[in-house]
């Protein structure tokens, strides 16, 4: 299994600003992902973070709004850019050993945009 940590655990931000969320895995993982979970809702995949190359975004999510980096096999960042109140959500990162492997999730970052 893998242990995943995220920073910050929560933040309150003003609209128009940007926030970068960090995700650290305690061991190398093949795949890393970023999800959004709105209060009381399910998880929606934002993108797959690819090591050394551009992330793969799901429909409805774009790089200009959610730039992602993954410089190595244990670390990734997600930036929420030009924030609006609609971006208020919990953002979770996960890691997995590959297809069919279970994903291990971080504790999430609770973002509130005012």
């Amino acid at each position: 299994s893998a242990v995943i940590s995220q920073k910050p655990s929560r933040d309150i931000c003003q609209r128009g600003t940007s926030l970068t969320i960090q995700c650290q895995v305690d061991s190398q993982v093949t795949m890393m992902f970023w999800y959004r979970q709105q209060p009381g809702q399910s998880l929606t995949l934002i993108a797959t973070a690819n090591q050394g190359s551009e992330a793969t975004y799901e429909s409805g999510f774009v790089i200009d709004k959610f730039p992602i980096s993954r410089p190595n096999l244990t670390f990734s960042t997600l930036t929420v850019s030009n924030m609006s109140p609609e971006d208020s959500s919990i953002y979770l990162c996960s890691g997995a050993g590959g297809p069919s492997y279970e994903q291990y999730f971080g504790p999430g970052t609770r973002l509130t945009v005012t």
Partner: protein
Amino acid sequence: AQSVAQPEDQVNVAEGNPLTVKCTYSVSGNPYLFWYVQYPNRGLQFLLKYITGDNLVKGSYGFEAEFNKSQTSFHLKKPSALVSDSALYFCAAEPRTGANNLFFGTGTRLTVIP
């Protein structure tokens, strides 16, 4: 469109009674299937998965799940519920495409009544 359905938002069961949390999926190509549990203010924890083989899968904390291909279902079960099982449960499906991305159900809140 690919989707996972959890028809019950809320399931209540008395402590010691058997529990079932339902899940059906509409994901092409015999997906891998997962159950995750989320406790308050914590990330998702992996419970069990179905890859192939025996239709009854055993997982963590005494949980098991039954895969039914004809009904495209993957219901989560436990013979005797504990109060500590109270949490939010998510079913997820991963297409066998190698992308490792998960489609999540909307979640079912399980409450075990003492």
